[in-house]
């Protein structure tokens, strides 16, 4: 247990360092220098040189990297080359927005996938199971931004029940916040739900074949209680893996949905940064997204141990 925790933590730390090097190196190899990129081709040499000096871009790359990494560790994301504003507050602000969206989407996905996948597995020979299965296959094929467009068309344009786009912070107007959250969260959640449903289905099907489920029924449990008490926890192990990966997909997938619904999240910050050629901001946002994904995967790994006692004995 402890060994595994130490091992996982070490893997996480190494991954974080390696990915920060990758992100930094990638942004550093770009043709042309960031100051020139930020100021545009028409800027004077002096202005570019001044910017380079101001942001320390004239120092050797390793120094710049360590400086950047040190800043990140202290929660200092640096100052934008373009707007000259501190990046940290912007990222924190935008990250909250995206987090709302992703968490709401994930909840919707789970609420759909767990019951639907279980029914699909338990009734996989019946019409209802097959129909759900076909429906999920179609759901998987719809990209989140298309779902968003369709939802807007239906609920905002045709029915006029909900706002087509926009964002209000929850503290400002909770009612409006919820109204504006529903459609984008649905767009993310419906599609991820369809994907997740298929994994829940195969995990439950796998468990239904297990001998211990037969033992549970031989004890006198009816099929559904047997599956509930003995099957779900076992089926959860593969589902949790997918959930971790999906959380990563959702974080990034939110970029597109934010664009559809005009939501000021991390994704739109990234896209704006790219179009403003604000390279440090791009680098910071990418790093935040990657860290989020790695940390999620770390917790997923720990969750396995909680779910499956066989992993607790010793390290692999």
């Amino acid at each position, binding site marked *: 247990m402890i060994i595994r925790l130490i091992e996982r933590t070490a*893997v996480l730390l*190494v*991954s974080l360092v*390696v*990915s920060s090097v990758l*992100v930094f190196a*990638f*942004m550093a*190899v*770009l*043709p042309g220098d960031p100051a020139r990129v930020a100021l545009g081709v028409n800027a004077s040499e002096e202005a570019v040189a001044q910017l380079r000096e101001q942001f320390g871009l004239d120092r050797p790359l390793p120094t710049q990297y360590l400086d950047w990494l040190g800043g990140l560790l202290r929660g200092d994301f640096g100052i934008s080359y373009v707007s000259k504003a501190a990046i940290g507050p912007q990222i924190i602000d935008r990250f909250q927005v995206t987090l709302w969206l992703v968490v709401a989407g994930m909840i919707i996905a789970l609420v759909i996938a767990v019951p639907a996948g279980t029914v699909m597995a338990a009734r*996989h020979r019946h019409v209802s199971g097959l129909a759900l299965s076909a429906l999920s*296959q*179609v759901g*998987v*094929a*719809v*990209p*989140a*931004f*298309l779902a968003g*467009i*369709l939802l*807007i*068309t239906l609920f905002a*344009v045709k029915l006029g029940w909900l706002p*087509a786009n926009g964002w209000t912070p929850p503290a400002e107007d909770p009612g409006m916040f919820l109204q504006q959250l529903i459609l984008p969260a649905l767009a993310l959640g419906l599609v991820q739900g369809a994907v997740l449903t*298929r994994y829940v*289905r*195969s995990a439950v*099907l*796998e468990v239904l074949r297990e001998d211990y489920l037969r033992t549970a029924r031989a004890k006198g449990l009816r099929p559904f209680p047997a599956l509930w008490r003995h099957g779900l926890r076992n089926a959860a192990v593969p589902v949790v893996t997918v959930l971790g*990966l999906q959380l*990563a*997909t959702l974080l*990034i*997938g939110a*970029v*597109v949905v934010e*664009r*559809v619904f005009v939501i000021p999240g991390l994704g739109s910050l*990234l*896209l704006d*940064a*790219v179009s403003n*050629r604000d*390279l440090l901001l*791009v680098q910071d946002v*990418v790093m935040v*997204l*990657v860290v989020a*994904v*790695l940390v999620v*995967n770390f917790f997923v790994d720990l969750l396995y141990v909680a779910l499956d006692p066989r992993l607790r004995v010793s390290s692999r």
Partner: protein
Amino acid sequence: MRRLNPSLVAGGVIVLLIVVTALVSFVWTPYDATLVDPASRLLKPSWSHWFGTDKFGRDVLSQIMVGSRTTLFVGIVAVGVAAVIGVPLGILAAMSRRWSSEVIMRSNDLLLAFPALLLAIMFGAVFGASTLTAMIAIGIASIPSFARVIRSGALQVMRTEYVLAARAAGRQPFPIAVRHVLPNVASLITVQASVSFAIAVLAEAALSFLGYGTPPPTPSWGRMLQESQEFLFSAPRLAVFPGLAIALAVLGFNLLGDGLRDRFDPKLEDRR
């Protein structure tokens, strides 16, 4: 004779339809897909324009037809990149010693933290967005799933008696990989290619939607959707046709992948 597999048939038919559409678009489309005609802006579907026209008066059906080329092209290159790198990595991880295999798989896991969309945006920021950056980003992002699937398949092959016999006979790893492992994971490669293709179609659509994919005027389904957004109130049909095209393509490749999987391993039939 084995029972016809409905997923395989449906997926095959859809994929074939898209391929045929793309091929036909080289020699014939109802109109020039990029022809701007201000006189026929935003026309409803009719006999002369089956799917109507967009805000520039371009024929939607023609654009969908030509767009299928973009979709297939991006998919083929992306899956090719992923397979060419991912398959050898997976086999290498299965055949090499514990620590080097560990290093490969850990790097693989690390790559999972960089999804296609993020990579493509980074590429776009550095090199400028184009079809090429999109294809390569999607390809790189698809490497981990290839490597993982191939590794587990190759591990099984490595445990079979004929490989053990070949190793006992002193055969070198490379001939074993080429002669025994590769042919036995070929079915896995096919299945994974089909599944990755579906993911590539989705990613390409999302990138074009964001403006990080194929630049105009080359028609692309994702960008057609993005352009349709300003007409959701007046002409929602503009979103419907490219949307359907994307969904159909993804569905086709997913079904094909499922069908192939069942075909190669009938025991798994109920699992997906």
